[in-house]
């Protein structure tokens, strides 16, 4: 173990660095929160869009079914009938819903991959960094004691 007498350091510089580390920890914690929030916003946004397109698909399917019913009556009366526009609308809604679902799956995979790295970093900020700050504080306190400087606060 190193004796404080062997430490050659400017106490003010160490204090400044320790304070900066504390600020860094708090600020990076906000970064982590904002990152998590962005993922949640994306998930919620995709779920919202999927819900809208599910509703639209149901409406368009109902329109298509009604059109087919009317068309059958028209054809029975010998008049032409066409439901291709309704069929296209159903297909479009289904394709867009499928596309959103594929994105939802991709987002979940990405979030899951990211979670491991994010958890490690969160541990570093919540556990390791405070220990590092305390380690620096112990060095600073030791130096102050060795140099006869009154220890003030933490």
């Amino acid at each position, binding site marked *: 173990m190193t004796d404080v007498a*062997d430490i050659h*350091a400017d106490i003010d*510089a160490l204090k400044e*660095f320790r304070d900066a580390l504390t600020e860094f920890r708090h600020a990076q914690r906000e970064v982590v929160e904002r*990152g998590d929030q962005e993922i949640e916003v*994306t998930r919620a946004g995709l779920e919202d869009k999927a819900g809208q397109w599910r509703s639209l698909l149901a409406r368009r399917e109902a329109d298509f079914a009604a059109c087919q019913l009317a068309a059958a009556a028209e054809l029975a009366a010998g008049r032409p009938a066409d439901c291709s526009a309704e069929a296209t609308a159903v297909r479009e809604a289904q394709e867009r819903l499928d596309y959103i679902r594929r994105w939802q799956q*991709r987002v979940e995979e990405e979030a899951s991959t*990211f979670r491991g*790295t994010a958890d490690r970093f969160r541990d570093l900020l919540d556990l390791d960094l405070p220990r*590092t700050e305390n380690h620096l504080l112990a060095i600073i306190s030791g130096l102050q004691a060795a140099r006869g400087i009154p220890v003030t606060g933490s």
Partner: protein
Amino acid sequence: MPARPDEDGDHLLRMIDSIWQKTQQHWLDDMAGHFDRAHWTPLLAESRTYLRALGECLEVMSTAQRDTEF
């Protein structure tokens, strides 16, 4: 418009790295070297890994939101 979180995180990391570089000029003993190896280098590496992963993840989130605007 606020910067993306990973960009802000990167800025914070550059700032603290710069403060550490200055601190090293005033901390000239074996313990400084030990602190650098045992505390600072892992912190820097883990922060960079996280911020890179966050950047990649947010890129996917942003594309997902953009691509599903019909």
